[in-house]
C-alpha cells in the first residue's frame, strides 16, 4: 500500500457526502508554466502588467464567443443538485470543489464587472473584483476540475462546470499565468507530434521491438507499421500506448485485431498522438492546431479511414470537435464514421464473427468495466445513444468469461472520473488526485470484496496512468488496471479463420 502524508477518505461501504471543510485543498497548487512553454502555445511569457484589465477583456470576449459561458454565468439558481456530485468534493470536503462553488469563483467576478446588481450592491450580491487573492483561488480550484461533466448530468439547466473551468484557464493563460503540465505537453505536441516528445527514431525502435516481442510470444508476424502510405486505416493512439504500462498491452491488442481482420493500417510519425490537451485549457486555437495535424497526416498518408485508440478526453475532442476543427474529412471513405473508435472497429468484427476468440485465456481475471468520463458524457459509439456504454462491454463479454458490473450510480452516465483527467495528471496535484479517486475506488472495492473482481478494464490513457498510481493508496494493486484491448489481446487467436 502506497503511503500518503495526508488523510485518506474512507472508501469502505461507499464514499459518503462529507461535511464541508473550507480551505481543505487550498494548499494544492500547480507548478507555473515556463516562459518558453507559454510563448510556444501563443500566450504571454510572463504575467502581463495590466493583467486584471486583460483578464476581464478576455472574459468579455469569451462570453461573446461561447453561448455556454454567457448562459451558465446567468442561470444557476444555486439549487445545490451538483453540490455532492463532484469526485473532488466527495474526496476532499473542500466546499470550493462543489461544482456550484467552483463556478461561483468566476460568477462573483462576472457579477461585479458585468451586471447591474453586482455593481450596485457589491458584497450583498456576493460580487467581487478580480483581485490577486481571487486569481489565486482560480489557479487552485480551476485546476481541481477534471472537466468530467458529471455535474452537468444533474443540473436542471445542464450547466457544465467544464465550460467554466476551460474559460478560466484560457483567461489565466492569456495573462501569462498558465499551468506547466498542460502547456509543456502542448508545446511538445506542436514540436514533435506527440505529448511525450518521442522522436521518430525512438518510435521506430519501439515498434520494431513490439513486432519482435509479439512474434516471440505468438509465432505470428503482427505488424506495427509507421508512415505506410496507402494503408487502409490510420491508427491514432495516445502516445502513452507506445511506452507506458499497462497501456502498451492494449496497443498490442489493436495490432492483433488489425492483423486478424486482414485490414492494413499505419501509425503516423507526424501525428503520433491522439490526446489533445488544447481542450483542457479551453484554447480553441491550440485544440484546432493539434486536431488539424492529425487530419493532415491522414491526408498525406492517403488512408481511407481513421481509427482512434483508447483515450477519453481525446475521444471527446475527436468525436465531438474534429469535424468542426479540422473537417470536412472528405478524403476519407464515407462509409465509416470519422473517427471510428477502436472499440467500434473491434466490436463490429466480433459481431461479424471475423475474430477467433478464446475467452478462457482471460479466466484468471474477473473483470469489471470503468466508464471513462469523457467517453461516457462527451461522445458516442455506434449509432444509438448510449452505444459508448454497450460497445466496450460487448467486447469484454466476448473476450472474458467472468464479467461483473459496478454500481450504476458510479458508472455509465453517472460515472466517476478517475481523478486525473483534464490536466491534473501531474505530481504536484497528487493529493487531490488520490482523494478525487476515492468514489471510483469505492465502487471498485465493492465488487472486489463481494464478487471477486480483480481487474478493472477501461479505455483511457489517463485513467490507466492515474489508477495505477493512486489505487495502491487504497490497498488496491496497480495490476487491477487493464485496457479493454489488453484483454482482447489475450483472447484473440491469430492465424485462425
Amino acid at each position: 500500500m502506497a503511503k500518503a502524508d495526508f488523510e485518506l477518505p474512507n472508501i469502505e461501504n461507499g464514499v459518503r457526502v462529507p461535511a464541508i471543510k473550507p480551505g481543505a485543498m487550498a494548499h494544492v497548487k500547480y507548478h507555473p508554466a515556463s516562459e518558453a512553454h507559454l510563448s510556444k502555445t501563443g500566450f504571454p511569457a510572463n504575467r502581463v502588467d495590466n493583467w486584471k484589465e486583460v483578464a476581464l477583456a478576455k472574459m468579455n470576449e469569451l462570453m461573446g464567443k461561447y453561448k455556454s459561458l454567457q448562459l451558465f454565468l446567468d442561470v444557476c439558481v444555486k439549487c445545490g443538485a451538483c453540490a455532492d456530485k463532484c469526485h473532488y468534493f466527495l474526496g476532499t470536503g473542500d466546499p470550493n470543489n462543489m461544482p456550484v462553488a467552483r463556478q461561483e469563483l468566476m460568477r462573483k467576478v462576472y457579477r461585479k464587472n458585468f451586471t447591474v446588481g453586482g455593481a450596485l450592491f457589491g458584497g450583498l450580491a456576493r460580487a467581487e473584483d478580480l483581485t490577486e487573492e481571487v486569481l489565486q483561488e482560480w489557479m487552485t480550484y480551476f485546476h481541481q476540475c477534471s472537466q468530467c461533466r458529471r455535474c452537468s448530468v444533474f443540473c436542471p439547466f445542464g450547466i457544465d462546470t467544464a465550460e467554466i473551468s476551460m474559460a478560466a484557464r484560457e483567461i489565466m493563460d492569456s495573462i501569462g499565468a498558465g499551468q506547466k503540465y498542460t502547456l509543456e505537453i502542448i508545446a511538445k505536441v506542436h514540436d514533435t507530434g506527440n505529448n511525450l516528445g518521442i522522436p521518430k527514431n525512438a518510435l521506430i525502435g519501439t515498434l520494431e521491438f513490439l513486432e519482435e516481442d509479439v512474434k516471440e510470444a505468438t509465432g505470428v508476424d503482427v505488424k506495427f507499421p509507421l508512415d505506410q502510405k496507402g494503408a487502409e486505416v490510420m491508427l491514432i493512439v495516445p502516445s502513452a500506448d507506445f511506452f507506458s504500462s499497462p497501456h502498451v498491452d492494449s496497443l498490442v491488442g489493436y495490432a492483433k485485431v488489425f492483423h486478424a481482420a486482414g485490414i492494413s493500417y499505419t501509425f503516423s510519425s507526424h501525428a503520433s498522438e491522439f490526446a489533445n490537451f488544447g481542450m483542457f485549457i479551453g484554447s480553441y486555437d491550440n485544440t484546432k492546431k493539434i486536431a488539424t495535424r492529425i487530419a493532415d497526416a491522414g491526408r498525406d498518408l492517403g488512408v481511407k479511414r481513421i481509427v482512434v485508440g483508447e483515450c477519453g478526453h481525446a475521444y471527446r475532442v475527436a468525436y465531438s470537435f474534429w469535424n468542426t476543427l479540422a473537417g470536412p474529412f472528405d478524403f476519407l471513405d464515407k462509409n465509416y464514421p470519422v473517427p471510428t473508435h477502436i472499440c467500434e472497429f473491434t466490436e463490429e468484427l466480433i459481431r461479424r464473427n471475423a475474430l477467433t476468440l478464446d475467452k478462457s485465456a482471460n479466466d484468471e481475471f474477473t473483470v469489471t468495466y470503468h466508464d471513462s468520463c469523457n467517453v461516457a458524457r462527451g461522445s458516442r459509439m455506434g449509432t444509438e445513444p448510449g452505444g459508448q456504454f454497450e460497445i466496450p462491454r460487448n467486447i469484454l463479454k466476448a473476450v472474458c468469461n467472468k464479467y461483473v458490473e459496478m454500481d450504476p450510480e458510479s458508472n455509465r452516465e453517472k460515472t466517476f472520473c478517475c481523478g486525473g483527467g483534464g490536466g491534473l495528471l501531474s505530481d504536484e496535484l497528487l493529493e487531490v488526485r488520490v482523494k478525487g479517486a476515492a468514489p471510483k475506488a469505492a465502487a471498485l472495492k465493492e465488487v472486489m470484496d463481494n464478487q471477486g473482481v480483480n481487474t478493472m478494464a477501461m479505455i483511457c490513457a489517463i485513467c490507466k496512468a492515474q489508477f495505477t498510481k493512486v489505487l495502491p493508496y487504497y490497498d488496491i494493486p496497480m495490476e487491477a488496471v487493464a485496457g479493454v484491448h489488453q484483454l482482447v489481446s489475450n483472447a484473440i487467436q491469430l492465424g485462425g479463420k
Partner: protein
Amino acid sequence: MSGLSPLSLVYAVLSYAVTAVFFGGLLHKLWGYAVTPNPLNIATTPAPATRGGVIVSNIVNIATFSSLFKGNRWTWIGGYAFHVILLAVFARHLRLFLHPVPPLLVLIQPVALLGALLLPLPLIYLLARRKAVDRYAWISSPADYFVLVLLLLIGLSGLGLKFVSHSDMVGIKQFLLGLVMASPVDMPPHPAFIIHFTLVLMLAAYFPFSKLMHAGGVFFSPTRTMVDDPRERRHVNPWAAK
C-alpha cells in the same frame, strides 16, 4: 392620466416603467443567449441523435425537472411543488387582466385557489433547506434568500388580500384592465392590495437582472439543446470560419 389621484398616478407610472424594464431586460438577455454562437458541439451525452429527440427530451426535462430529480429528490420535491403551484397561481391571476374571462380560467379557479393557499409551504421548505444543509448554506447568498422571501411575502400578502381584509376585487380589476388598455383609472386605495402589488413590481423589475433568468435560459442550454450528431453533420463554428 389627468384626474387620477396622486397615488394612482405614481403607481400607473411605476407599472409602465417596470413593465418596460421587465420586457426590455428579458428580451435583451434572451437575445444575447440566442445570438451568441456555439463554437463546438457540447451536447452532454448520451443525448438524442435527432432534433426531434432533443425537443422531446427538453420538454420532458422542463415539464418534470427530470435532471434535478436525478440529482436530488428532496430538492426536487420542494422545487417542483413550488413551480407547479406558481403556475396555478399565475393562471388564477389572469382573470384580472382579461375581460370577459375565458371559461377555462373560470373552471380552474378552485384548484388554483388551493394552490395559492399552499404556496407558502414549498417556499418555507426551500428556505429551511438552504439553512439546514451545510453545503446549501455555504453556497447561498443574500440574493438567494431575498428571492425566496420576496416570493413568500407576495404569497402571504395575496392571501391577506383574499381572506383577511376583503378587498374591492371589482375595483382592482378595473385598475389592472385600465393599465392594460392604456387608459388608467384610479387604484383602490387598499393597503393590502398596494403592498401585494408593490412586491410584484419589485419581483418583475428584479427578474431580468437575476438568477430568475433561468426561466428563459433553460431553453437555450447548449449541453441539452444540441443534437448528438457531430460525426454525421459538420457543426460549423461561426467565428472561426476563414
